[in-house]
């Protein structure tokens, strides 16, 4: 099993979610995240004082998938999240040792 984690632009979330649903993904975890890559932050001005905001708001999306699906899911996310502009984000895949469904106690792939 694999965990696919995607950091994407917040306003791309709906598009990515729909693309993943179309692919057959049944669940996902979404959280607000902040960070920066090569894009760095932006600056704001209040009464002449300039504040540099280092971290840019992003959305973190996590999906647990079967080993076979991992690469395809990454492709789906890439295609849906890409705007071509700076700050589009990153996607990575991590190995997962075990998964359990709380309601039924199912383990492993059954629990995905």
């Amino acid at each position: 099993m694999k965990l696919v984690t995607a950091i994407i632009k917040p306003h791309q979330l709906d598009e990515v979610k729909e693309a993943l649903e179309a692919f057959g993904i049944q669940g996902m975890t979404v959280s607000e995240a902040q960070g920066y890559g090569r894009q760095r932050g932006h600056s704001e001005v209040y009464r002449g004082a300039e504040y540099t905001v280092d971290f840019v708001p992003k959305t973190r999306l996590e999906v647990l998938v079967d080993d076979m699906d991992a690469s395809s899911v990454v492709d789906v996310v890439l295609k849906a999240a890409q705007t071509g502009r700076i700050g589009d984000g990153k996607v990575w895949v991590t190995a997962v040792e075990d998964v359990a469904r709380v309601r039924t106690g199912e383990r492993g792939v059954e629990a995905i």
Partner: protein
Amino acid sequence: MAEAAETLDYASTGFVIICASLVLLMTTPGLALFYGGLTRAKSVLNMMMMSFGAMGVVGVVYILWGYSMSFGTENLGVIANPFQKFGLAHMEPIYNSFGYEGYGNIPELAFVAFQLTFAVITVALISGAVADRVKFSTWLVFAPIWVTFAYFPIAHMVWGGGILGAAGNSISGVLFGATDGAADVAPIDFAGGTVVHINAGMAGLVLALVVGTRVGFGKIPMRPHNVPLVMIGAGLLWFGWFGFNAGSELAPDGTAALVWVNTTAATCAAMIGWLLVEKLRDGHATSVGAASGVVAGLVAITPACGALSPVGSIILGVVAGGLSALAVGLKYRFGFDDSLDVVGVHLVAGLWGTIGAGLLATSTGLFYGGGIRQTIVQVIVALATVVISGVVTLVIALALKATMGWRVSEDVEVSGIDQDEHAESAYELATRGGRIGGASVPAPARTNVSDQSHDLEGAK
């Protein structure tokens, strides 16, 4: 007090009472929202409470001895006798302070109501200079002491027949002569450029210096946490300010109408002036800039609003907005933490408005062929206010520093003053679990409920 007919003028009475209510709207919620939005989320309640607290304390003090000290008829020099009308004794049923012919008869209590609101907002204005870091108890002790020794005397000197006013024995009368007990070149302060704004601005500067900078000032960002609140607050301030300025005529007449128009003209122009400076200097015209420009324009026109033409008001306003926009950067250069720019906005625009009135007054102003005398008088009353306010505030601030202490601990300031000083937080942004208890809630019975409460505990 002039001889007047024995009947009340109901139009003027209603006008003054409504204007008094408008000025109260400036403090709560106008100024409270304006300042509250400009602070960080962790200290917004404390910021708003400083305005509410000023309202509570000063409202009581004004009724007890404030009015008598400011406008009593027993002149003791820098103040009037505080005990003459203590607790609003001996109120005149009919009062006509400007001696209008045939109108303007109001109950003295209506005049008290109007003047009370001025004392309240002047104290509340000061709080912006010491945002985020001052003990609420010290603030509540400072407020009555400061109004007693700084505000009431200056109000008396400027408006109550004292040395900064229009009487024959005032500084101006002595300097440029007097006729029939009235100075030939009377100082112009229609609605409180000196008494309210220079006074509060100077007090703010002194307090900021005595109290010291916030932890991390100039290093970590201290951004306004809610700009829409700032905009709402500025809008309410503007609306209430019509009561402040036009109401100072104490009658709904031609001058009141001129004042209304001048107040609008200067404020609109000041907003544009501030935004222009921002656009040229920072590359952006900002919302906080628009709100601040509005306040700067209102401050500047306050002393001058009865003496200028509408076009003169536009000139006064645009300069006020530009000047204040430049002045708010001074605190970083000089290293004093006037957190919400009481100095940059109120002191600078108040000085400019008071002195600008000497230049732009249609009757006696320098630019209207009135000679230099009016401007000299304006500079004298402005500087006198700076000195008196500065010295008195310094003494009070140092005394409180040595006794009660001004500042909350560094830990409290960093974690947020609201939580420690008021045991509240402004926004519940995340569920933090916990249990309920306290004086008005009976202790929960030790039953199986506690088993369920584990679900709430430690959820983070």
